[in-house]
């Protein structure tokens, strides 16, 4: 780890000004920043500590939706009674992420800024080629160990999987990222790698996440986050799905459906084709299974990650059917 200057920001404005300087990075929970600094992936000149800033850790839930301050810890949000009752998928995504120790440290804003777990990205000394780290240097992952890499949203420049859970639920329920006064839909906040995999988020220098908001919806209230992995805890998803359903008055016909995938794509992946295919349909296992196959339309594998193309639709179908059972 290289030496850096430590700066304690006195206010949100001061933090943004400091963070606008070249080589500056914000420090919240530190679970990503310190990890990647130790790996040699990031080498900040200045670390701007915002952990003590007042008013950024509130969780407010009402009939219009939830607003969660950027500094709220993952574990607090996961445990919040109104989040659990009105946005179960958000709570479930959070408590299945990382480990208890990490959830007690990591913040919601920092969680959105979490970087990929691609082993080639994380090891600069052995794998100098990484378009995410050094644009134009190439991709070490393609042709390598690809078991955990993405099958959706990839490009020739990058196949790194977006690893998080929370943002998958947020994308499903049209959450908004607040960058001070500017607001960006979560789906737009995460960028596809394309030819610029180094740009992962629609955030500009000098901007800072201050909060996220999630609009209330019937689908969010009847929602779940299903995470599938070999290890029961503390592992990134092999495939995951955030699903919310709103039924017509008959309790069987789907009026509204939200589906997003995790662990299989280069960003939190909204599966609108599945949503459209099932809208107005009666919830039947075979119909759901067929429609869920649309979740991986256009998927491309790199050998060892082929199983994700098989697995992801099954995870989607199980999550949808599980929500139907609770009707």
């Amino acid at each position, binding site marked *: *780890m*290289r*030496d850096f200057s430590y700066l304690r920001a006195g206010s949100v404005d001061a933090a943004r000004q400091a963070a606008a300087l070249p080589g500056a990075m914000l420090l919240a929970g530190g679970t990503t920043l310190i990890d990647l600094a130790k790996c*040699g992936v990031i080498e900040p000149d200045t670390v701007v500590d915002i952990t003590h800033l007042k008013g950024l850790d509130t969780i407010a839930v009402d009939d219009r939706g939830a607003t969660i301050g950027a500094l709220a810890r993952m574990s607090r949000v996961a445990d919040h009674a109104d989040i659990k009752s009105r946005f179960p998928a958000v709570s479930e995504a959070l408590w299945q992420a990382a480990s208890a120790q990490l959830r007690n440290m990591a913040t919601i804003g920092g969680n959105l800024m979490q970087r990929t*777990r691609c*082993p*080639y990205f994380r*090891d600069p*000394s*052995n*794998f100098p080629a990484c378009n995410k780290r050094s644009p134009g240097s190439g991709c070490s992952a393609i*042709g*390598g*160990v690809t*078991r955990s890499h993405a099958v959706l949203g990839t490009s020739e420049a990058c196949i790194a999987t977006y690893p998080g859970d929370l943002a998958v639920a947020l994308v499903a329920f049209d959450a908004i990222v607040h960058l001070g006064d500017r607001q960006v839909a979560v789906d737009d906040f995460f960028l596809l790698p394309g030819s610029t995999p180094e740009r992962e988020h629609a955030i500009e220098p000098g901007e800072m996440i201050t909060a996220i908001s999630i609009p209330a919806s019937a689908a969010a209230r009847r929602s779940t986050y299903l995470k*599938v*992995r*070999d*290890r*029961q*805890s*503390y*592992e990134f998803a*092999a495939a995951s799905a955030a699903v919310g359903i709103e039924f017509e008055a008959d309790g069987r016909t789907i009026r509204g459906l939200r589906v997003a995938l995790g662990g299989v794509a280069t960003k939190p992946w909204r599966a609108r084709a599945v949503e459209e295919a099932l809208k107005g349909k009666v919830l039947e296992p075979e119909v759901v299974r067929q429609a869920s196959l649309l979740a991986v339309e256009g998927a491309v594998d790199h050998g060892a990650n*082929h*199983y994700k193309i*098989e*697995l992801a639709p*099954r*995870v989607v*179908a*199980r999550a949808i059917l599980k929500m139907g059972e609770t009707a």
Partner: protein
Amino acid sequence: MTVHELRTRPGESKRGDASDGAVLADQVGGRLSRIDGPAKITGAAKYAVEQQLEGLTHAVLVQSTIAAGRVRSIDTAAAEAAPGVLLVLTPDNFLPLKTATDWLGTPPPDVTYCPLARDVTFSGQHVAAVIAESFEQAVAAAALVKIAYDEAPAIVDLSDPKAGDGIPVDAMTKEWGEAETAFAAAPVRICNAYNTPREYQAPMEPHGLIAKWQGDQLTVWEPSQWLDGMARTYAEWFGVPFENVRLVSPYIGGGFGSKAFAYGYGAVAAVAAKMLGQPVKLAVSRPQTFTAYGGRAATRQTVALGANADGQIQSIVHRGVNETSVDGMWVEPLGSVTSVMYATPNFSSRQNVVRVNTVVPGALRAPGENPSAFGIESAIDELAYEVGIDPLEIRLRNYAEQDPEAKKPWSTRQLREAFAAGAEAFGWSKRTPEPRSMRDGNQLIGWGVAAGTYPVRRAYGEAVVRILADGSVEVESSSIDMGQGTYTILAQTAAEVLGVPADNVVVKLGDSRYARAGVTGGSRLAGVMTGAVHKAATAALDQLVGLAISDPNSPFQALQANTLVVAGGRISSPRGDGPEVSIAELLRSIGREHIEAKGDTMPANSTVEDRYKNYTTIAMALPHTEGDYSRHSWCAHFIEVRVDEDFGTVRVSRVVSALDSGRLYNPKLAESQWKGGIIMGIGQALLEEGMVDRRHGRIVNNNLADYLIATNADIPDIEVISVGIPDPHSSVLGGKGVGELGIVGVAPAIANAVFHATGKRVRDLPITLEKLI
């Protein structure tokens, strides 16, 4: 007998479960809690690299980024100019060391040893090291060392076309009868290949050391499973007498076979400390631990079973291969369980090793027996389905009544009892034989069984027992406790012999200045050391009683007794007709500061050289088939899995294991060790795999987020049942091995359960979800 957890009695919390029926916690066989536990839980236990030393400097390793080739040049200028840097070590300025004797006692070749490589044979090999005033400075400067390589093609792993068939290891060949002919003639034949990947010890405490020189005296604080073996290596590297090296290792945060040897990074720290004249700390980073020493070698086996239609085995033909490094030799004995588990008139096992560009593999819990059991215990399950016989029944039909290879009777073999007790507790009789016949919603349920075994490795030990003026007792040994309970069982042994409460016994371990000890590995330490302490304590007791009887100032002198009784720390005559005094009172009256006895279990005519060899190599170890008997511990695992039919995820939902480790010196600690082995086996079966990038010959998941070991959430309640009986042929006090046994057979039991659940036979570990969807 099912083992129950007993509630701690009020006031006895320090001792944990006070008794297991008749056995007091203070005696051998009692359920005394680990006496080192509170120190570890509260953080009071100071581990090797936590020592605070004046003038301590910090070393950081620089490892190769190619798997094969040559270091063309190393540019150290930027690193040397970096803040705080004291020294940059490369092959060019490294002190010439001598090559040391290996652990088998093989005399070393007369060539210089340098742990920093010019010729690179694996990715992650040490090439340079930076020593700085602070750890952070050393890390920053290490990144500035620029190494240029001439890269050569690497042999990546066993499946590399360049790897070839390897080198036959003749010592592994075992043959009797006409195995190939009998197999060809058998009415039922199955033949399959079973593979295990590279696996790693992944101890919680990573490796590292602090080295400090005073003149030609070297002190090394390093987690160690073998102080005297490692002290010998350091001494030989530097050409100083063995006595000049002191190894200190009071606590070890997990070893699993990986902490028995001095490795190259140890030489780096010791050389740096010598060159700088300052103590040097070197902490191997977690990613570096994957190549700073070897994990379990990747293995491949073919097991052919020829049988009658009733499932009786007529022939076993076994072929095994394990990988080793380009210039080192590691043999993972793959035929070790194959040749002892089942009775067969015809048998053949051969093994090759294949050189690939990897760090030389090493010992990982039950080396040999573990992968060997995966082969034979999977194969017999396949045979059971082939002939339509219950997997438990087929094992009983082929039960080996004596060692089929050595043709000697077992010292004790409670495997039949293990099968019976395990099956009963598990409810095996309720199993429906058909695959996919048991389910719960989306979960396919499978029940599997497999057996395991580990040989009894015996050696000689020594210990010092001291009775102090206040009546307390000290036990000293340079053996170690890496969590398995050495501190506790040696206290119990001394307490029982000397008739004092275990609380009054202080056990001192982990310093090579104490009485010598051999390696803590192969499940030998408890048997060796309880024997040595028993002998030393008995000698101390004899001295004490002798003085009490004969010393003119003893209160017992007038009694003219032949013997006296010591119990509860007090001395009296057997008839109770004389005085009764405490040990402290007796020592005071006869004017003795202390009584000291050294006991060892070496043969009486042993020379100084014999003793040195016994404690610093394994050359004096006794074969498990020495004399009239074949000695092994045994176990049977019964495991239930739940497999999600859509996702392929496997969860272990129930484990019942019945184990025969002979007499248990402390059932509570033995159960913990067995459970630890079973937990590790669950990780091995379902999760653990070093993933090799085939272009670079490099393990890419070299951290604990990506190299998956089992978490608490992966582990169900585990019931362990002791079926052992005292085995006088295996150790002084009747115990057999505990620590290695538990893991042996777990992976095949899980694979067999997965087959029962799904109808899919997975012969390549780990059983990850993509193999089942």
